[in-house]
């Protein structure tokens, strides 16, 4: 008797608690920066106060753990309402498996969609349908150390073409300065070179043709040419000693300790790169500058064609309908302005560039407004497998372990294999 009444009590209790349960918006992210998380939390509180019965819950997973757990998590009942995404190939897989929600209609309402940079929205669009919203844009630029450049007799502002850059590298070496830092163990920092050279040589149309397998896909002569440029460049030994065993963090530390003249890296280097310096501060603003990756003579790409990492949020199916309402607040101009001000990142929301206080980051952000074309980091866009093949090939080209022709063929073969 006792047990029975206890059971029925428990059952009743669960029904009652279920009935009064709040709608919970669960957001799975990989953001470890406490300042950013604080502002996000404020956005959640602001939203909760105007939407009784709705709760916003941020769940954190470390980057690698996130990648490993996501496929299982998304196919379980514990699926988050929205989750971090780099767009590109992985997103196509997720959308293809039917776990993402087409939010085109709800983000069109009130022109919410148009508050973001079009290129950023494009990154989360598959076959004309929008599945997610962008968070931030991080263009990859060529950072330089003003003191070291002066010492080597280089004026970075005069570096327009690839040849100028090669000359600058030689000048550095003549002056006994290590020209560049790169994290070759991680491999993706090296793919910035091969990808940017491809962009500068082929231009936007050429890149799109390669993705669509026209003119020989990624095995086309322009890609081979880009790989050849990079291999010849690496043969000059422009990178810090032992770069193939260094991670991004170690390489960023090397640059921000003032040991190399240049560093090809994303805008996050201002925050994350500096944190890896021996003194945790890195190069101060007045000693640091940036230029666009140089153009290639005769190439179709422009210097201000941006190559960027573009992160955002994908919405899952069965996510509460309040999720988009929350995004209007969270990814709205007010909150994003707050995030942009201290230079935590460059939001994908139009008009936030002007409030960025850090002058270097502000210049980069303003270029996003001006550019005609943002190319997404290729190791993301190509998907988890082919992306890594490109990274591998970049490292192998640098170490002389493959030829440009073989590398291009390997890339195209993997691209074909994964498109089946």
């Amino acid at each position, binding site marked *: 008797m006792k047990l029975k009444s206890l059971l029925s009590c428990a059952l009743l209790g669960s029904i009652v608690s279920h009935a009064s349960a709040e709608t919970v918006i669960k957001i799975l992210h990989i953001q470890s920066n406490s300042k950013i998380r604080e502002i996000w939390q404020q956005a959640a509180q602001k939203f909760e106060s105007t939407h009784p019965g709705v709760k916003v819950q941020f769940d954190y997973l470390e980057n690698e753990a996130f*990648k*490993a757990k996501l*496929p*299982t998590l*998304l*196919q379980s009942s514990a699926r988050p309402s929205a989750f971090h995404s780099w767009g590109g190939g*992985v997103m196509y*897989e*997720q959308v*293809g*498996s*039917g*776990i993402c929600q087409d939010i085109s209609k709800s983000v069109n309402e009130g022109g919410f969609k148009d508050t973001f940079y079009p290129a950023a929205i494009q990154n989360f669009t598959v076959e004309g349908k929008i599945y997610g919203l962008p968070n931030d844009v991080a263009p990859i630029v060529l950072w330089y150390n003003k003191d070291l450049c002066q010492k080597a007799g280089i004026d970075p502002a005069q570096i327009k073409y690839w040849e100028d850059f090669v000359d600058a590298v030689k000048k550095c070496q003549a002056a006994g300065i290590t020209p560049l830092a790169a994290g*070759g*163990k991680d*491999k993706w920092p090296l793919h910035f070179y091969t990808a940017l050279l491809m962009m500068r040589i082929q231009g936007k149309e050429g890149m799109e043709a390669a993705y669509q397998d026209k003119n020989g896909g990624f095995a086309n002569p322009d890609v081979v040419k880009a790989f050849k440029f990079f291999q010849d460049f690496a043969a000059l030994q422009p990178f810090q*000693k*032992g*770069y*193939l*065993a*260094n991670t991004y963090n170690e390489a960023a530390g090397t640059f921000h300790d003032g040991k190399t003249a240049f560093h090809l890296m994303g805008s996050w280097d201002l925050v994350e790169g500096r944190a890896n310096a021996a003194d945790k501060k890195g190069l101060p603003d007045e000693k640091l500058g940036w230029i666009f990756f140089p153009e290639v003579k005769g190439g179709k790409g422009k210097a201000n064609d941006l190559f960027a990492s573009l992160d955002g949020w994908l919405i899952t199916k069965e996510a509460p309908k309040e999720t988009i309402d929350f995004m209007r607040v969270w990814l709205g101009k007010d909150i994003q302005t707050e995030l942009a001000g201290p230079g935590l990142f460059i939001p994908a929301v139009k008009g936030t560039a002007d409030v960025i206080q850090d002058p270097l980051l502000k210049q980069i952000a303003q270029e996003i407004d001006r550019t005609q074309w943002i190319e997404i980091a290729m190791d993301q866009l190509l*998907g*988890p*497998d082919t992306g*890594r093949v490109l990274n*591998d090939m970049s*490292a*192998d080209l640098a*170490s002389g*372990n493959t030829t440009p022709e073989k590398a291009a063929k390997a890339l195209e073969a993997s691209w074909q294999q994964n498109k*089946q």
Partner: protein
Amino acid sequence: MALPTDPRSPGPKRPPVPTLTSNVQQGLPSLAEARELEVMLGARPSLWRRLQDFSGSSQMRACLLFLPPALLIFTLFVTWPVVEAAYYSFFNWNGYGAPSKWIGLENFLRVLNDPIFYHSLFNNLLIVLVSAFIQVPIALALALLISDKSRSSVIFRAIFFLPYILGEIVAGLIWRYIYDGNYGVVAVICRWFGQQAPEVLATEGWATAALLLVIVWKYFGFHMALFVAGRQGVGYDVLEAAKIDGATRWQSTLNIVLPLMRPVIVLSLFFSILGSLQAFAIIVALTDGGPSNSTHSAVSYLYNFGIKRMRVGFGSAIGVTLFIVCVLVMVFYKRLFMRPKEGR
């Protein structure tokens, strides 16, 4: 009680043997009685009969009690994943949705056509060879030196065993710093001699050598501990007898101790092979397979090219191939070295 007319009945004088079945099936010959008759007639009990015998025994009850949990866990966590992996290996699948793109043996062909896979297996072989010809002899020599119970020996055993206690990731990271060409110990020592420090981990060949050194350093203590135990298991009386017969220490070590320690040495080599087939974390921490995928082991190859790249089908094919390799290696090793009659 059996009927007196039953020709098979051995007679009413025999007291019935109480068994589970005879209590239930009153009137029929009990299992035990039937069994006895069979023995009398000289008939070999059939499998079915033996099973029936077994079903009533206390052994059966013990099996019923203890076998299901073990069997369930083994099936759930060992057999089932292996079967599942074998199934996935026939698909081109990235882990999303249900596997649907059946590609037959394509994944296996890709594995078998990948030079990096063979290079990884070669690295596994290198680990075994280095372990057999460098690590095990060092561990054996040390064990023979410090297997007595003196205080200094105990201290040295603790010191030599220390690297084994360290986590693999920790060991890998420590050695990354040691090998670093800018501020590592190797670089500092090179500079003492006015030499430019080599970039050990960034150079192919050197990186493999560096990895092997770390593996020897990390695991020789484990083998040493095995040998110390094996050496202490050699009876004192045998050694004393040899001493009385006038054998020198060198002679008794070579002709008595080592032959008696053979089972331990065989076991130690077995662990080397096992360790090589499992080598993973230390590689990830030290080189992550680089430079140019030259330092992968079979498992780190699987992780990098299967799991990290979201190629579940391909990864499963690597896993299945590796499983077959493991089974073959173990079967041959057991056949060759671990025959019971060759033991003590």
